[in-house]
């Protein structure tokens, strides 16, 4: 699906990721894990084609990212930014419909199939009742779900999400990430997301990429990579793991002796 070769990311002279060789197959669900400033968002933006490459290459379906026409690329991968600002009073359905742009070619108006896709996406995110609302009046969590609905309406095989669980309440964190996992399993979609909740990441991801922020990285299946010792090393804080009802739960180690 998507692969990086010897990808190196530098921000203001600091090397965040060095020589990343990363191959993602269809149907895989990846979580990128690392501390603040470790280069998670920078990596995702680079893979989305929003950032110039310093060194190395990113290929989608065996073709270099720069060689893709933008509109064709927009039908292959969708990207959810970490945050957004709304300057104008567009309605929620307008923002979702705008994600159908790559399918419009030269048409001036959307077709009924676009409306169908937009309404379905809003319903899947449980925000169908907000369709006509001005996006600037939505709460943070509602706005986030509308943004994810737009991503679903774009209907691409590859989804890149920067902190999709941001601002969502607990129930929606579980339902939204569960939906993403289902998309991977049932529709063979590929998901790459950033998240800070290790338990959520562990329960839905098939693979994980750990970034330390000093250039080193570790990629592999969840069972191999999400080990307490490794996570503790990459996150810079000791992590303990307990088994509960057949699930692995990660908790940060706390020292109560001082």
């Amino acid at each position: 699906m998507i692969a990086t070769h010897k990808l190196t990311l530098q921000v203001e002279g600091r090397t965040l990721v060095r020589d990343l060789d990363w191959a993602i197959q269809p149907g895989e669900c990846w979580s990128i894990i690392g501390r603040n400033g470790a280069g998670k968002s920078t990596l995702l933006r680079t893979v989305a084609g929003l950032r110039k490459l310093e060194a190395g290459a990113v290929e989608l379906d065996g073709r270099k990212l720069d060689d893709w026409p933008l509109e064709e690329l927009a039908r292959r991968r969708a990207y959810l930014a970490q945050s957004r600002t709304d300057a104008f009073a567009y309605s929620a359905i307008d923002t979702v419909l705008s994600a159908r742009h790559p399918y419009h070619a030269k048409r001036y108006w959307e077709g009924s199939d676009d409306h169908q896709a937009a309404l379905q996406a809003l319903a899947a995110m449980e925000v169908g009742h907000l369709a006509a609302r001005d996006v600037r009046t939505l709460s943070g969590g509602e706005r986030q779900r509308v943004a994810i609905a737009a991503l679903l309406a774009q209907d691409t095989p590859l989804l890149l999400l920067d902190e999709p669980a941001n601002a969502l309440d607990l129930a929606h964190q579980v339902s939204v990430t569960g939906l993403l996992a289902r998309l991977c399993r049932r529709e063979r979609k590929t998901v790459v997301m950033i998240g800070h909740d290790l338990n959520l990441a562990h329960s839905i991801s098939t693979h994980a990429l750990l970034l330390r922020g000093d250039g080193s990285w570790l990629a592999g299946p969840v069972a191999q990579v999400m080990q307490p010792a490794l996570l503790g090393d990459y996150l810079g804080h000791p992590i303990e793991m307990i088994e509960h009802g057949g699930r692995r739960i990660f908790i940060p180690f706390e020292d109560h002796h001082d």
Partner: protein
Amino acid sequence: MHPVHHAARRRTTMIVGSLLLAATACVLFSGVTGSVTVALGELPDAVAQVLHGRQDSLAASLLALRAGRALTAFVTGGALALAGVMMQALLRNPLADPYVLGISAGASVGALFALLMMCATAVVDGAALAGAVAVSMLLYLLARRDIRGGVAAEGGTSTLLLTGVILMSACMALVTLMLSIAPEGSLRNMVFWMIGDLAGTPLRVLPWIVLAGALAFALRSARAMNVLALHADTARTLGIEVGRLRKGLFFVSGVLTASAVTNGGSIGFVGLIVPHACRFAFGPDHRVLIPSAVLAGGSFLVLCDTLARTVIAPTQLPVGAITALIGAPIFLYQLHQLRK
């Protein structure tokens, strides 16, 4: 509920159709209003005469004279409103207007210098255009990273906005300087030019060509402008060439502003208030906003200009004073409606 696709299309046709009728009515209203009123009964005959290129009756020649000026007002207002819509989409800021980047201030420097030198009207127009072009070029050079955009880390347009604001201040300083050293004889002309005045502006073809070209560009980019207004830099992931679109918006709105300012001086508020009012009434979708703003902007300036030449006739007021007097309260009203 939300409008379904054919409903949106029908709604747009309705809006544009009604505004087109309103615009025609405004031009005719302007044609019959003045120190000598053309009676409504004489109107059909006078219109027919003017359309056939004859002006046998007094009514027909009055109509031709006033409608000519009204058409100039219309093309100027339409251009300003369209430039405003584009500038607001470019800067993703509903408070932007065509003057915010200092393009009109550059035109003012050029025009006022020509007026100071007692040049002919054509030279003044040329100097205004040169000033606008010079500021645009400078702005593009200084803020080209913002305009190209797309792959920048932050991807905002704050450099462009700040550069524009500073260039405008510099131009306004030059304007003040020229006004302070101007002899009494040219001062009145200079002040009127600054406020914006349509008296004595001939009906030209070029502004119509500029407006038509810009409108065609805007309508073709309308969907992309929606995506840009909604998603800013990530518009690229939806297949929009953000850099190319920004460049297009910058240049086309610059040319529109230069054309409008050359035509009627720096008439304020039209480029700010009309896009605002249209967005308020018809929604932010650029596919509706662009045609409606052009028609509403044109009509608004026609009405303001009619007021300017009739309210204390025979003295003619500069139309810019009228647009500001009407525009400021309307804008404040809308702002407080939005805040509720």
